[in-house]
């Protein structure tokens, strides 16, 4: 049916439909575009009707996917036409063809404003609709007050006001800084009394946007929302036309519950009770019905109610109702409900005390992993990942492994990463962990990043019992016909170190091991060859009695590579050849790699940052307690009080603790063993990059000084520094230490740590490269805290001086300890406060990251375009200018990203980049060595894919550029992504010992870099 249609348009559409192929269609379109173009050129002869017709044709052609690069002006000009039909077409085509960034829109602002403030209601509607759909900054600047007026006007009809509400929502959402909503709380509350449900629905959307920005201002709206919900849920006073399949406006119900989720809690007991009654009614009263639409609508409401219940952290009884419902959902056939059941169950994992109930559905969830629908499989994978703990890890990981062979390519990377993380976190025994990782490499080698195989090597090195097992295992894999290169790397490393442990087994003579490894050499790339060479050197060393033939063979290989073009290979070949002639001396130099300091896996660390999940945390804790640990321990021999002026390097002894740290179930630790303060605290300290052995660090404390030790063996990891012979009790910290730290990275005062006895607050002032922090140590009890000690473990780039800390903090007293900080050079490393005190018989020791982070030494600076571009151009190419495509970015709106960066003192300079999807940052970095350096950053986001962006950084200092890039990246990335190792060179154990000055060859350094 063509209603008052345009004949010319219909004919054109028919023509297009009759085209036999794409080519014909193109010809017809080109002809029409030519026609339209000539008609537009000679605009005078055009009647409004014709103009309208051509503009519609343009839109149609545009919709077919052709570029329409002219005629935008004509569409925009129709907006100012005096008559409704032309105006309508002008508005609608403009809002389809253009987006908020088009310059043409500027031309229309005046006409649009005239329509909005004019008396013609239909014109107002057209204008509000367009601004609501594509309005940008300039519209917000010039129209927001008028739109606000319309929304509140009592003389306007609902059809105008509901459009005004959403128009305002758009303007506010896009430019919260431009739209002034001060004092809007009362007006919003008033709007919520609206009788017209159309206006109310739109107003509720507006409220959601406002409370998501600032919930505190709108608390008066909370009881009104509850009232609306009650009215809808009881179906009181809802006009028939606003019910949808018998359900009173499900959309308004959903929106209202969404708004409520932005309020942290509901204080008023009456409101709370009413709300819970409504929620209870929704939870219990929603049945599965035959009608699809009714079913969807009622479940839309139900799922929103579930989300609200979770948010409000309802009583246990209600929670278990929710879990029961979800349990039902994950088992139904209807795919939408099953999908949402899985999704919401994953969210439910955040709630305490329901994990056990969720585990009961494990079989069902695993079945969903094999669903024909990839959307459902993804949800199942996420849920399994989230619910995994020590008790079910074996089952879940084995399912994932099995699924890996048949999984879509799109999912394999995620799947293998998740399996690797779970295997590490929850391995019941280490041989199982080795099995899992080797299977992963075997099945999905392409998706296994370096840090996964580094980690398995690290475990094998640190656990003597595991070594022969791992060696035998990798040897089995090498016999397979096609072996992934990563498998060759792992095998070469492990067989080089430990194949001699197998020597008595059949088929494991040095010669045989050598030949199966050497078979792979022609198939591998230059990054693997150095590892093979190291393995050969080690095999040769372990061959007792010496085997002349094998030696000749290996020497021949070394000789061959002596002239290799790859410097790394060449160096190793030359060195090993020379070394292997030294006979007995070889034994010392090529000795087995020392144990790694125990540290948290980079994978797990990233995963934890991504999901703060109590269930997992507890599981990690459990795991950490079960794990054998060969930590390096620094003995603290002279427990002193306070920290006198800096003394270069105190005495230090490295003690290898071979014993296991055994923990009894209740968490108390056997007294003989040195042990970490608590798994939780330790985990927190092992924060990103926190504590690597800083080269040449001067530590301003006379005891417990960490000298700058570098190299594989001695890289003292601050996290591994554990006071010996101290009886420590696990005192639970209050609040999340990591969160507190992150918050303090953004602001300058707040609480750093709190437990039942003490609260440590911090207040900081930063000026250029200087910082002055004051630590506030508050005793919360009525008994004194004694033996108080505070030490600073600064990273190499910070000079820190802590003033005297009193030995005793009297009851209920607070002491202040100033701490001076000087930033020497750019680095992301973080200083650590090692703090201990005694309360009664309990010794408490805590290590806390201090928020003296890179961003504190930044000073935002406004830069004009004239200054910016010459600077930007003059810093060309690495190492001063670096570019990186970052994936796995936490999806967030651009404005949120801008706020985040601003809060790190990375000031966004608007207007420098014409593309509104890009952010340009100008800031100055201060350090003693570099003085003030201008840093310029450009972030290009992809509006179609918020999970990735491209970052370009430039500054006058290569280290700064790199450190800043990594720093920003850490703030933006959230999901456990697998970064490629920064240096392509593989770990080379013997070479590392030979040439400790090349950290790129040092696996410890590489691993540390990944942490």
């Amino acid at each position, binding site marked *: *049916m063509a209603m008052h249609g345009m004949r010319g348009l219909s004919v054109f559409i028919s023509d297009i439909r009759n085209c036999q192929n794409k080519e014909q269609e193109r010809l017809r379109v080109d002809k029409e575009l030519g026609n339209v173009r000539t008609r537009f050129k000679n605009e005078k002869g055009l009647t409004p009707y014709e103009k309208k017709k051509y503009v519609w044709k343009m839109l149609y052609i545009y919709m077919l996917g052709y570029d329409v690069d002219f005629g935008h002006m004509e569409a925009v000009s129709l907006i100012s036409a005096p008559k409704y039909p032309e105006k309508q077409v002008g508005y609608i085509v403009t809002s389809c063809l253009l987006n908020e960034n088009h310059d043409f829109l500027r031309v229309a602002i005046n006409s649009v404003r005239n329509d909005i403030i004019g008396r013609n209601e239909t014109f107002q509607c057209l204008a509000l609709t367009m601004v609501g759909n594509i309005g940008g900054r300039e519209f917000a600047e010039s129209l927001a007050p008028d739109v606000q007026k319309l929304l509140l006007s009592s003389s306007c009809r609902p059809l105008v006001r509901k459009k005004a509400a959403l128009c305002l929502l758009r303007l506010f959402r896009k430019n919260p800084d431009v739209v002034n909503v001060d004092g809007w709380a009362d007006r919003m509350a008033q709007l919520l009394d609206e009788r017209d449900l159309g206006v109310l629905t739109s107003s509720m959307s507006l409220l959601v946007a406002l409370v998501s920005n600032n919930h505190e201002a709108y608390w008066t709206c909370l009881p009104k929302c509850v009232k609306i919900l009650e009215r809808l849920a009881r179906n009181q006073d809802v006009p028939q036309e606003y019910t*949808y399949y018998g359900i009173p406006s499900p959309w308004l119900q959903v929106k209202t519950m969404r708004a409520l989720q932005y309020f942290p809690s509901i204080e008023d007991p009456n409101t709370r009770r009413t709300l819970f009654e409504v929620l209870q009614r929704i939870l219990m009263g929603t049945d599965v019905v035959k009608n699809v639409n009714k079913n969807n609508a009622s479940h839309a409401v139900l799922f929103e109610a579930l989300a609200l219940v979770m948010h409000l952290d309802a009583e246990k009884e209600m929670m278990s109702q929710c879990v029961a419902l979800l349990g039902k959902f994950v088992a139904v056939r209807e795919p939408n409900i099953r*999908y949402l059941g899985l999704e919401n169950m994953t969210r439910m994992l955040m709630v305490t005390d329901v994990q056990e109930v969720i585990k009961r559905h494990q079989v069902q969830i695993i079945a969903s992993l094999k669903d024909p629908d990839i959307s459902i499989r993804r949800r199942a994978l996420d849920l399994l990942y989230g619910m995994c703990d020590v008790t079910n890890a074996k089952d879940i990981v084995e399912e994932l492994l099995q699924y890996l062979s048949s999984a879509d390519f799109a999912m394999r990377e995620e799947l293998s990463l998740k399996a690797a993380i779970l295997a590490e976190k929850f391995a019941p025994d280490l041989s199982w962990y080795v099995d899992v990782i080797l299977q992963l490499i075997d099945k999905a080698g392409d998706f296994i990043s370096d840090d996964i195989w580094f980690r398995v090597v690290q475990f094998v090195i640190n656990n003597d019992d595991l070594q022969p097992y791992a060696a035998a295992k990798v040897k089995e894999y090498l016999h397979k016909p096609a072996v992934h290169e990563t498998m060759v790397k792992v095998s070469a490393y492990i067989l080089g170190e430990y194949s001699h442990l197998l020597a008595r087994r059949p088929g494991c003579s040095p010669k045989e091991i050598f030949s199966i490894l050497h078979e792979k050499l022609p198939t591998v790339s230059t990054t693997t060859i150095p590892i093979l060479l190291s393995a050969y050197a080690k095999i040769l060393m372990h061959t007792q009695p010496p085997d002349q033939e094998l030696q000749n063979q290996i020497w021949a290989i070394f000789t061959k590579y002596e002239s290799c073009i790859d410097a790394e290979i060449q160096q190793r070949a030359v060195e090993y050849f020379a070394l292997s002639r030294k006979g007995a001396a070889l034994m010392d130099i090529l000795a087995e790699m020392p144990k790694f300091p125990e540290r948290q896996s980079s994978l797990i660390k990233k995963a934890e940052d991504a999901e703060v999940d109590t269930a997992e945390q507890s599981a990690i804790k459990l795991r950490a307690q079960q794990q054998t640990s060969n930590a390096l321990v620094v003995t603290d021999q002279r427990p002193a009080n306070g920290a006198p002026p800096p003394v270069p390097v105190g005495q230090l002894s490295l003690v290898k603790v071979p014993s296991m740290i055994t923990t009894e179930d209740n968490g108390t630790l056997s007294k003989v063993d040195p042990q970490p303060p608590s798994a939780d605290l330790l985990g927190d300290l092992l924060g990103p990059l926190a504590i690597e052995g800083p080269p040449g660090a001067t530590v301003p404390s006379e005891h417990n000084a960490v000298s700058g030790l570098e190299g594989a063996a001695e890289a003292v990891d601050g996290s591994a520094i554990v006071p010996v012979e101290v009886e420590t009790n696990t005192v639970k910290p209050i609040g999340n230490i990591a969160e507190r730290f992150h918050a303090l990275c953004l602001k300058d005062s707040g609480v750093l740590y709190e437990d039942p006895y003490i609260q440590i607050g911090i207040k900081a002032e930063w000026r250029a490269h200087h910082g002055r922090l004051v630590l506030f140590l508050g005793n919360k009890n009525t008994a004194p805290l004694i033996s108080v000690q505070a030490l600073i473990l600064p990273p190499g780039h910070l000079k820190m001086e802590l003033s005297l800390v009193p030995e005793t903090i009297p009851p209920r007293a607070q002491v202040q300890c100033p701490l001076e900080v000087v930033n020497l050079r750019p680095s992301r490393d973080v200083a650590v406060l090692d703090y201990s005190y005694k309360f009664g018989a309990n010794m408490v020791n805590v290590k806390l990251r201090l928020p003296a982070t890179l961003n504190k030494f930044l000073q935002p600076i406004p830069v004009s375009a004239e200054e910016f571009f010459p600077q930007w151009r003059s810093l060309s190419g690495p190492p001063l200018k670096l570019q990186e495509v970052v994936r796995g970015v936490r999806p967030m709106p651009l404005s949120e990203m801008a706020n985040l960066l601003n809060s790190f003192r990375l000031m966004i300079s608007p207007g420098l980049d014409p593309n509104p999807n890009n952010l340009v940052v100008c800031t100055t970095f201060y350090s003693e060595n570099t003085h003030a350096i201008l840093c310029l950053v450009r972030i290009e986001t992809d509006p*179609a894919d918020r999970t990735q962006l491209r970052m370009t950084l430039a500054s006058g200092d290569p280290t700064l550029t790199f450190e800043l890039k990594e720093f920003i990246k850490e703030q933006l990335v959230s999901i456990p992504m697998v970064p490629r190792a920064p240096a392509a060179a593989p770990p080379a154990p013997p070479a590392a010992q030979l040439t400790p000055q090349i950290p790129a060859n040092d696996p410890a350094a590489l691993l540390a870099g990944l942490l």
Partner: protein
Amino acid sequence: MIHFVLLISRQGKVRLTKWYSPYSQKERTKVIRELSGVILTRGPKLCNFVEWRGFKVVYKRYASLYFCMCIDQDDNELEILEIIHHYVEILDRYFGSVCELDLIFNFHKAYYILDELLIAGELQESSKKTVARLIAAQDSLVETAKEQASSISNIIAQATK
């Protein structure tokens, strides 16, 4: 919020596009191509949600047409699914058992109706009756203007005879 609305035929022809977030022309083409590839290949008995580039696309097939809406990850999927159905019902009421051909030849109508339903990617009106009334009022405005225009042109034509 809804970032965009797409109507795609089973053959991959685009019948309507509406963008509430700013996408350049190039990005729009890319999005359409990518999503057609994902959605048109999905089997019949699967769920109505597709995860895509950090977003979710809720879609539903009606006869030969796929109605798709792209939303944020934490939005309520079923609510959007029923907005789609709500839209289809309104189209159906307006055209009288709507089919793809109606939407091809009267694509501008589909846009008018959508504008009465959604603004800024949010639902504006949940009453079918109200939307129908507003669209009818618009139609009559256009008709009146047309009649006036023809009567004026008649007058002019006669006057200049």
